[in-house]
């Protein structure tokens, strides 16, 4: 199957800071999770793939269009939905007016068709009843859904979501996950997150990014399998563990190279992720 996005050797520097380092990946329909610690380069990669910033080196195509050219960039943008990490809203706009505004930016100029589309996406994210309410009067979760509706307006084929579940309470997060899962049906969705639960629940594929480079690219099951035989329980934190944290039962869950005779545990996606990061910034005690 032809991938929706095909990128090779993407690199980007901000001054002396290396934000992306030779990133290559291919994305196909479904939800792909982009995991990584803060500062890993997730947002930068998303902004490059969303055509907001050009890479210093490397190339990529979206649905066969090359965003390095002006014409190719316009074609990519016609097929793109983008939810930035901190979406901004015009303070005086209602939810409907805001999504309508983004629809106009997406060149939907026919008023009747545009309004129909705006109603459709607002209904899709469950905000049909509050479409006339000002965005600033909506809750954080609702505002995030307005931003998702704006990303989905125009039925884009490639959707980029930058940490959309940050700041949401558990109930809102679950609801948002349902919306993302639905958005991923028939589309290619790239979801940046630092929550492994998002990936476990939503993604058919996961890419782990650290220090601007791809550390893992595979299925969630393959990432989990990296921790097979490398997770164990102990009464106290094991000094030899790469990461360890106290669980609800009071015992410690350790990941790394277990000592002989250790009480091995079933690995999770989070264990595989921590081992992939190789302990850098991953030590957790609670």
């Amino acid at each position, binding site marked *: 199957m032809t991938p929706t996005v095909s990128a090779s050797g993407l690199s980007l520097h*901000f001054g002396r800071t290396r934000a992306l380092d030779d990133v290559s990946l291919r994305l196909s329909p479904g939800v792909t999770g982009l995991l990584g610690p803060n500062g890993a380069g997730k947002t930068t990669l998303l902004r490059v793939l969303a*055509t907001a*910033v*050009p890479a210093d080196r490397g190339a990529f195509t979206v649905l066969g269009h090359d965003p390095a050219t*002006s014409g190719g960039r316009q074609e990519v943008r016609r097929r793109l939905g983008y939810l*930035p990490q901190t979406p901004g809203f015009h303070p005086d706009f209602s939810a409907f007016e805001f999504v309508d505004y983004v629809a106009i*930016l*997406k060149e939907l100029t026919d*008023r009747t068709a545009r*309004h129909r589309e705006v109603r459709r996406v607002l209904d899709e994210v469950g905000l049909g009843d509050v479409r006339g309410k000002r965005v600033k009067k909506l809750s954080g979760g609702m505002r995030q859904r307005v931003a998702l509706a704006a990303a989905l307006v125009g039925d884009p084929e490639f959707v980029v979501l930058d940490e959309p579940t940050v700041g949401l309470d558990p109930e809102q997060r679950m609801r948002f996950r349902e919306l993302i899962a639905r958005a991923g049906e028939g589309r290619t969705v790239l979801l940046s997150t630092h929550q492994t639960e998002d990936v476990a629940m939503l993604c058919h594929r996961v890419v782990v990014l650290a220090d601007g480079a791809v550390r893992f690219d595979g299925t969630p099951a393959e990432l989990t399998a990296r921790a097979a035989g490398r997770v164990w329980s102990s009464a106290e934190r094991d000094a030899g563990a790469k990461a360890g944290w106290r669980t609800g039962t009071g015992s410690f869950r350790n990941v790394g190279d277990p000592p002989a005779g250790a009480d091995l545990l079933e690995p999770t996606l989070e264990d595989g992720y921590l081992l992939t990061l190789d302990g850098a910034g991953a030590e957790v005690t609670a």
Partner: protein
Amino acid sequence: MTHATTGWHVPEDDLRAYARGDLEPPALWSADTHLTACAACRAVLAGAFDPVALDAGWERLDAELDAPRPGLLESLLVRIGFADHTARLLAATPALRRSWLGAVLAVLLLTAAVAADRGGAGSPTLFLALAPLLPLAGVALSYGPGPDPTYEMAVVAPLHGFRLLMIRTVAVLAAALGLNGLATLALPGYGLRALAWLLPALALTATALALTARLGPVLAPSLVGGGWVALLLVAHTARAEDADAPLAPFTAAGQGVSAAVAALAAGLLVLLRDRFDVDRSRDV
């Protein structure tokens, strides 16, 4: 207000256009509102027109009913002939908000009042010095990641960034120059001398936009504004002993230089237009 209180009904031509889907705002909004309340007009619509077209009309009505009514500025823009989508783009321009426009008008009237107090003697220097900075500030506050909360979404939208910039620039310039013009009317004693802000205003705005492509949306207008103030201070120092003589930028030669700078900067801006199509704010 319904037909019951006004006696008004949708004209038949408008109903026909409505059924065809050709009725444009604001007449469309009037028809939408009226049809929801007026059974007589609905009956005329149902009886007189093609049922397929009518179904499409009802679908449109359904779609329009809960579309919020546009605000004052947006309605005004549509009434004076802007397409509704352009009006929505303009309504999102930070420098077209009432608070901003009110502040600009207050500053202008204040400086005009100071100048008027002199009864037309000499040159209204403070007014002329300040007036070009207001459209510059308005344009600077209308585009870019700082002032525009939706900048990040806009920059990846297929609508070219330069086109959005130009739409907003023209709107802000029209509003700011209009207000400057109104303030100028308060200075009849100075005659055409009171209009000497116009060409510097265009020159400063065009130069700032052209430099924005290279220096970003904060540094470029700041440098241009600072440069203007520095230029006026130098001109003030170099002015001959006649304190009532105009500063160099407001003389005929100075106006010529302003016109040339405006033209050059506009040309440069067009050449650099593709730089507005990606977010370069983090480059600088």
